[in-house]
């Protein structure tokens, strides 16, 4: 399995350490070598609305750092994945823009030749490791549990950036990844809906009313947890869950888990190793089952 530069972005290393812990351990066990590259900054996503060229340069600078190490990029955040992939895609299709970007990068002593592939961790698990190879690593079935999947937006869209590896209107990859752990995928209304995170800073009330819709839809089907793959989606559904509860005088107590956390459990890691201490809403049933497992074993 090829090695990757681990691109953490802004949110994961501070507010999604459980995601990072689980991803690192699972990747290591699967033989995916992750390298930390000094000098990575924000991907550029927040700069694009102000000046697309500044956003592009921030993205390309990060790609140049990975390229200098001869590594492809593996990202945990879907918005980072989208921003870095878009920058690479634009430069590949526009020699003039690429020349312009390299002139600016030269001021920073850097250059980008377009040799880096950008991949989301979930896509690497689905496409490069593959479901059958994952199945061989599963030692504990999560068959007693049902999860509501949330793909988020930037993992799949805009689809021209992602070579059609999954269908943006009817995606399958996360469902297959959840099922390989033995768990059920619990369907719910409007699964493709956005978390609202893109407008949280601008209009919190509107953002949280988008968030509320999905929390309502998932609560209605009684899933044990929501399973997702983007730190900003987790901020909306987990970190802001109590805020939504108080704004709308309701109660969800819905655990929100990062996919590598459940994959790790199924591969025999403990809840502690998978960072469950940092999940605000505890998946009590799941954690109790694993305590029983370790006591019984």
């Amino acid at each position, binding site marked *: 399995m090829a090695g990757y530069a681990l691109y953490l972005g802004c949110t994961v290393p501070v507010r999604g350490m459980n995601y990072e812990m689980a991803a690192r351990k699972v990747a290591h066990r699967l033989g995916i070598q992750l390298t930390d590259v000094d000098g*990575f900054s924000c991907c550029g996503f927040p700069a694009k*609305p102000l000046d697309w060229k500044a956003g592009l340069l921030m993205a390309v600078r990060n790609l140049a750092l990975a390229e200098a190490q001869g590594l492809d990029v593996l990202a945990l955040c879907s918005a980072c994945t989208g921003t870095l992939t878009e920058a690479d895609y634009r430069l590949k299709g526009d020699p003039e823009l690429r020349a312009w970007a390299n002139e600016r990068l030269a001021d920073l002593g850097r250059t980008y030749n377009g040799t880096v592939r950008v991949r989301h961790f979930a896509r690497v698990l689905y496409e490069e490791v593959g479901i059958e190879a994952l199945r061989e690593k599963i030692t504990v079935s999560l068959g007693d549990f049902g999860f509501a999947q949330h793909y988020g937006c930037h993992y799949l869209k*805009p689809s021209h950036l992602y070579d059609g590896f999954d269908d943006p209107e009817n995606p399958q990859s996360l469902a297959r990844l959840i099922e390989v752990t033995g768990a059920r995928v619990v369907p719910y209304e409007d699964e493709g809906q*956005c978390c609202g995170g893109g407008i949280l800073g601008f209009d919190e009330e509107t953002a949280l009313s988008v968030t509320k819709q999905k929390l309502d839809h998932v609560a209605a089907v009684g899933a044990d947890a929501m399973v997702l793959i983007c730190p900003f989606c987790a901020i909306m559904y987990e970190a802001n869950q109590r805020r939504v509860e108080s704004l709308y005088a309701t109660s969800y107590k819905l655990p929100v888990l990062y996919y590598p956390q459940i994959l790790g459990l199924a591969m025999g890691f403990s809840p502690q190793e998978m960072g469950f201490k940092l999940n605000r809403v505890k998946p009590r049933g799941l954690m109790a089952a694993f305590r029983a497992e370790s006591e019984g074993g």
Partner: protein
Amino acid sequence: MGCTMDDDNEVIIDVSTFDPHFRDEIAKEPGGEHIRRCFSCGTCTAGCPVGGVTEKYNPRRIIHMALLGMREQVLTSEFVWLCSVCYTCYERCPQDVRIPELMNAVRNIAVREGHVPRTFHLQLEKLRAHGRLYEIEDYENARRAEYDLPPIHEETAEVCQILDAMSAREKK
């Protein structure tokens, strides 16, 4: 939304204030190239997660206003900042108008005219100070160490250089 006599002054549009070149200005801005393809079918609005919860955001309406030439109203509006950039409409638009990129093009024009929402000023300050939206200094690295995660060093000099060049472009 019905119109009564009382709100006529707010609802009636005065075409003499329109800028017929606004559509061309947007079409020249990267991301806005396809604005003239829009035939106002409303597919974007029908599937919009933000439009689903508030009347404040309606992509078909904004594009139509832009095509009519309502430059001032569009650039000073709050609504162009309400696109959550989820790309649902991007995938579904039968005319490939690329609406999130179009909204971004309009935002870039608005910013050059000085219309920057407060939240973006705050984010820029963070990027300049830390090279990222959430700082990682000693406290954060100590927390990371508790979970056996490696320290992260903030990179600010090169990010500031990129952002300074952006500010210089804005002032032009």
